[in-house]
């Protein structure tokens, strides 16, 4: 029952006028960012992060979490109205959302998406509340050896489950880790990788610089290339009758929505998986278990509800390991983690003990963010239709200006702005050649923790490498990591074997 008392205290924080205003502001901003084709939660958080210096640290995190939430809701808007997913997380929403819009049911599809997002968000926040404190308690027993094993496990999920090219994934993980070592050596304090004594590198490469470069500038370049012609916006009108019909239709889909929420939550916890695969899986399951699977892809409302519940649940799920273990479950939560570290709030089990007001304030703000998001989302639909008519050139110009100014503001060094431009172009080219960017950002954020925990363990154990395996928890994590690592190899060998058998059939 202690949990409820803590949560009630949290609500006292999150329902204070300033935090409530911040949640509404963040959700609205997130909805618009998510609704813009190409821009998703990770772009929104990366571009907006430097602007959050305007509010106190704990409120800044609530603001960013609200933007994250809003963007997850908003992604559905352009999937339905333009037929282009607002972010990769809303890809599955286009399958049935777009046909619905073409049949003149755009309003209904948007209501379904908003309600489904609300159900997914709320169920997953309840799960989050139940799991957070126990998981943090377990994590209290973690020493450096366990931390290292856990980070390694997080990276190997990209290799084993990421679905991207294995070699390219490994390249990106290593690149992120190497970039994280730039600056002063953690143990000896000596400068390293400062590239011919460039003073700008002494303070290392900030995660923010990489994120703004890759997800701001890089994204704009990608958008310029892929958006040659302006897409057609489908008009959507919302009436109260339609709202009633939407709620009635959604009321029949509880089974799909609860399944999508629970699955999305657990898939979202894995660093390599997250909202996009979760929503695709939820769509697939809803279709397979449906009585008339043929209606999917032709404008079935269930096909909108399933992915939207799952992607919102996954975004909550990815917050859980970030807050309790300090290991982000997605690139967006990696940025949140970086932001928290920047403000002196180090995520992990100690945060639950040292800053309970902040932790429970944040958790309770997820409830208010969900409630705010569903209301604002439905109320602002006419405004989204108008905003989606905004030409890409205006949007891109604004984003680029924000990237330059926002990149300069935190450190006030032009060096960082140049790095942003460089990372932007490099990130764009790497993305074009199918190198996954999520492991790069995650590696840069987690790199210092990984190296520090590795070397601390070895110093404490007088160089005994077996220390990592001898401790039961860290040994278990390493075993799982090894399993993830050999998974693609097994798949490859089985595929090879299959190929050899094939001619005989």
């Amino acid at each position, binding site marked *: 029952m202690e949990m409820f008392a803590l949560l009630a205290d949290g609500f006292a924080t999150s329902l204070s006028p300033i935090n409530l205003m911040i949640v509404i502001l963040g959700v609205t901003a997130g909805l618009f960012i998510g609704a813009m084709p190409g821009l998703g939660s990770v772009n929104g958080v990366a571009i907006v992060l430097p*602007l959050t*210096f*305007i509010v106190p640290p704990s409120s800044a995190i609530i603001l960013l979490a609200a933007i994250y939430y809003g963007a997850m809701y908003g992604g559905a808007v352009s999937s339905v109205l333009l037929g282009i997913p607002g972010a990769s997380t809303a890809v599955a929403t286009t399958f049935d959302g777009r046909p619905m819009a073409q049949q003149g049911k755009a309003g209904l599809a948007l209501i379904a998406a908003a309600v489904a997002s609300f159900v997914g968000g709320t169920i997953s926040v309840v799960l989050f509340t139940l799991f957070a404190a126990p998981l943090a308690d377990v994590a209290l027993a973690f020493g450096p050896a366990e931390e290292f094993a856990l980070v390694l496990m997080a990276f190997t999920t990209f290799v084993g489950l990421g679905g991207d*090219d294995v*070699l*390219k994934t*490994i*390249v990106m993980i*290593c*690149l992120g*880790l*190497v970039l994280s*070592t730039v600056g002063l*050596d953690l*143990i*000896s304090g*000596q400068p*390293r*990788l*400062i*590239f011919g004594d460039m003073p700008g590198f002494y303070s290392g490469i900030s995660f923010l610089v990489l994120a703004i470069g890759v997800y701001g500038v890089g994204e*704009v*370049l990608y958008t*310029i*290339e892929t958006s*040659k012609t302006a897409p057609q916006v489908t008009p959507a009108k919302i009436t109260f009758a339609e709202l009633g019909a939407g709620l009635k239709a959604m009321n029949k889909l509880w089974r799909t929505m609860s399944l999508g929420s629970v699955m999305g939550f657990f898939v979202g916890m894995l660093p390599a998986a997250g909202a996009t695969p979760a929503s695709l899986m939820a769509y697939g399951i809803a279709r397979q278990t449906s009585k008339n699977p043929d209606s999917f892809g032709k404008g079935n409302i269930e096909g909108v509800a399933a992915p939207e519940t799952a992607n919102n649940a996954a975004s909550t799920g990815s917050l859980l390991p970030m807050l309790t273990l300090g290991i982000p479950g997605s690139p967006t939560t990696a940025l949140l983690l970086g932001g928290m570290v920047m403000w002196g709030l180090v995520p992990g089990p100690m945060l639950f003990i040292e800053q309970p007001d902040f932790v429970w304030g944040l958790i309770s703000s997820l409830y208010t963010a969900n409630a705010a998001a569903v209301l604002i989302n439905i109320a602002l639909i006419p405004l989204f239709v108008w905003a989606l008519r905004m*030409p890409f*050139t*205006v949007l*891109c*110009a*604004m984003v*680029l*200006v924000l990237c*330059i*100014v926002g990149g*300069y*503001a935190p450190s*006030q060094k*032009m060096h960082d*702005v*140049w790095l942003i*431009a460089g990372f932007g*172009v490099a990130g764009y*080219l*790497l993305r*074009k*050649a*199918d*190198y996954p960017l999520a492991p790069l950002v995650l590696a840069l954020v987690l790199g210092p923790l990984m*190296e520090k925990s*590795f*070397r601390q*363990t*070895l*110093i404490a*154990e*007088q*160089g*005994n490498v077996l220390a990592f395996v001898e401790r039961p928890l860290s040994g278990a994590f390493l075993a799982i990591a090894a399993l993830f690592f050999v998974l693609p190899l097994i798949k490859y060998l089985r595929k090879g074997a299959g190929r050899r058998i094939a001619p005989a059939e």
Partner: protein
Amino acid sequence: MLTADRIIAGAIMAFSVYFMWHALVLPIGWNGSTGGPGGGAFPFWLSLVMLLSAAGILLRSFKPNARASFRFDSTMLRPILSVTASLVVTIALIPLAGAYVALPLFLLWYLKVFGRHGWTLTLSLTVMTPVFIFFFFEVTLRILLPKGFTEPLFFPLYAMFF
């Protein structure tokens, strides 16, 4: 475009070697006295893994059944290059002429020349954006953006708001 794939893999290999060379400044081997690896070990060995993986990607692209992952619409080369160039010019101009000259110029070029928008939209955004940036960053957050030789023009504004 297999060539683009190969160039990118080659560039990553070159970067790896460059990183390794810089990492050699600190000990990369086992540090006997303290236990554990030296300061250069982490970047060095990870760069080596990166080098080998990128080499694998490069070699793979020479297999007869290799398929290109890099696709490019060549008509979009010009817009991409011009936006990149404008970005570089803008950033270079910021320390010299100041953010309040460079950014409006960038917006003017982007909206009017690149985006082919009307004067009303172009001018309103070109004027409003720097005003917003000034009040947000300089007045509220007390973060001063570079002004270059236009700094004296801002003294009356500083006197008014600080």
